[in-house]
């Protein structure tokens, strides 16, 4: 199977292991990822906060390229995914302000999690599982922009999404119910209001721990960075030690599919998850 791939800026920097694990998993599953030619940044929240035309034009340039390539467009970053969907619907539904473009909305835009959750991909994944993830008790954290607003994302159940729970269950992990699946981590306030990130991500980490889970699994580079890299400050703020593994779902997919590269991805985490995996004989 051949698809176009839009990694987005984060996957080439702060979320390098998300990119590496995605590439590896696709190779194992015989999915041919074709990185979009000369792609540009989607503009993220900075564009839509400051200029409504720029907020459409930046992702639209990538959609035009994807349409020329003619393959489904797969997007691992939740923020990029949502901005691309906003641009797609803006053009297809002829919203105001009108923007001139050759784009016709011919190629579907899919978040990576939804792509792997398609029936034929799940079937191949099931056949190729080499190392079931027994002992992993995960809370699935979908975050905001994979699901909201559903008119844009086409999410099936935006208040209680299931795709990641189903995928991890298929891989042999146990998923725990919790009420924070789609609560905000603080997103783009990362640099400007770190104190808000500490509050929001701190609460998510606390609630994950309280649920009885031993790890959080994410599908967004912004969520993972906020949850993984701020645990020292969160510990200070809460007055207790917080050390909680935060995985990308693709890392666990790679682990279950028997990839040899898992250690290299996990070394990039700030909160080292290797002790947990070793204790469950998974590493």
């Amino acid at each position, binding site marked *: 199977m051949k698809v176009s791939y839009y990694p987005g800026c984060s996957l080439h920097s*702060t979320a390098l292991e998300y990119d590496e694990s995605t590439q590896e998993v696709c190779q194992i599953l015989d999915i041919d990822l074709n990185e979009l030619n000369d792609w540009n940044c989607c503009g993220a929240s900075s564009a839509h906060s*400051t200029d409504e035309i*720029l907020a459409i034009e930046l992702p639209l340039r990538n959609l035009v390229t994807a349409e020329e390539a003619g393959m489904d467009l797969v997007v691992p970053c939740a923020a990029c995914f949502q901005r691309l969907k906003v641009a797609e619907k803006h053009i297809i539904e002829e919203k105001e302000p009108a923007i001139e473009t050759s784009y016709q909305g011919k190629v579907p835009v899919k978040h990576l999690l939804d792509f792997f959750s398609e029936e034929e991909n799940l079937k191949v994944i099931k056949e190729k599982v080499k190392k079931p993830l027994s002992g992993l008790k995960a809370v699935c954290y979908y975050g905001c*922009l994979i699901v909201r*607003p559903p008119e844009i994302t086409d999410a099936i159940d935006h208040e209680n999404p299931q795709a990641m729970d189903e995928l991890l269950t298929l891989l042999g992990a146990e998923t725990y119910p919790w009420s924070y699946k789609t609560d905000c981590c603080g997103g783009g306030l990362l640099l*400007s*209001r770190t104190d808000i990130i500490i509050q929001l991500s701190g609460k998510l980490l606390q609630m994950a721990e309280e649920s009885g889970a031993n790890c959080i699994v994410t599908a967004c580079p912004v969520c993972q960075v906020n949850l993984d890299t701020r645990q020292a400050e969160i510990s200070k703020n809460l007055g207790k030690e917080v050390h909680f593994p935060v995985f990308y779902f693709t890392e666990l997919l790679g682990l279950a599919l028997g990839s040899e590269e898992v250690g290299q991805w996990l070394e990039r985490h700030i909160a080292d998850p290797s002790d947990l995996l070793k204790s469950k004989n998974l590493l």
Partner: protein
Amino acid sequence: MQSESVIVPDHTWLAEVGKSSGENASDCYQCLKCSSGCPVTFAMDYLPHQIIHMIRMGLKDEVLKSSSIWLCTSCETCTTRCPNNIDIAKIMDAMRMTSIKSGLKVGEKRVPIFHNTFLSSIKSKGKVYELGMIGKYTLKSGDAVSKLKSGSLFDEAKLGWQMFKKGKLKLFPKKIKGRKEIKRLFKKTGEEA
């Protein structure tokens, strides 16, 4: 809010907001669902439903100078849950744009400085160059000084160094080939980042 003074509603601004956001704030019946689900209310000066009500009352300066419009993370919970289908997050976007254009004192100056440095990275390279952006933001926002005073600058630098060692912050920027095209887009929109 101005509990002592009498507010005479002025609806002219409501129509302007309707135009700039494409949303009708007067559809709101103040059910508070937006404020109940909003994750950032603890840090805001006005809650989302209050912002909507203030727009209806014509309290333009108060809204445009509020911190709330900048602290909104665009998580879209309010938009998704509003029973009257008001895209509240889109109104927040429109308020941010109007706030910048108004020349009024910004309620949360670090957030627009962040957006500005983020966009200037895209404008010149087509992509975000994290290390450059962080440096530029830290200097422009005055965070270098305030974080030095609070002692958190050391923690930030330590985290940055850790991420750099782990290959997560690149020393040199990557640039796309179609930079001219990107510059044209910025010119077209009048966004001078």
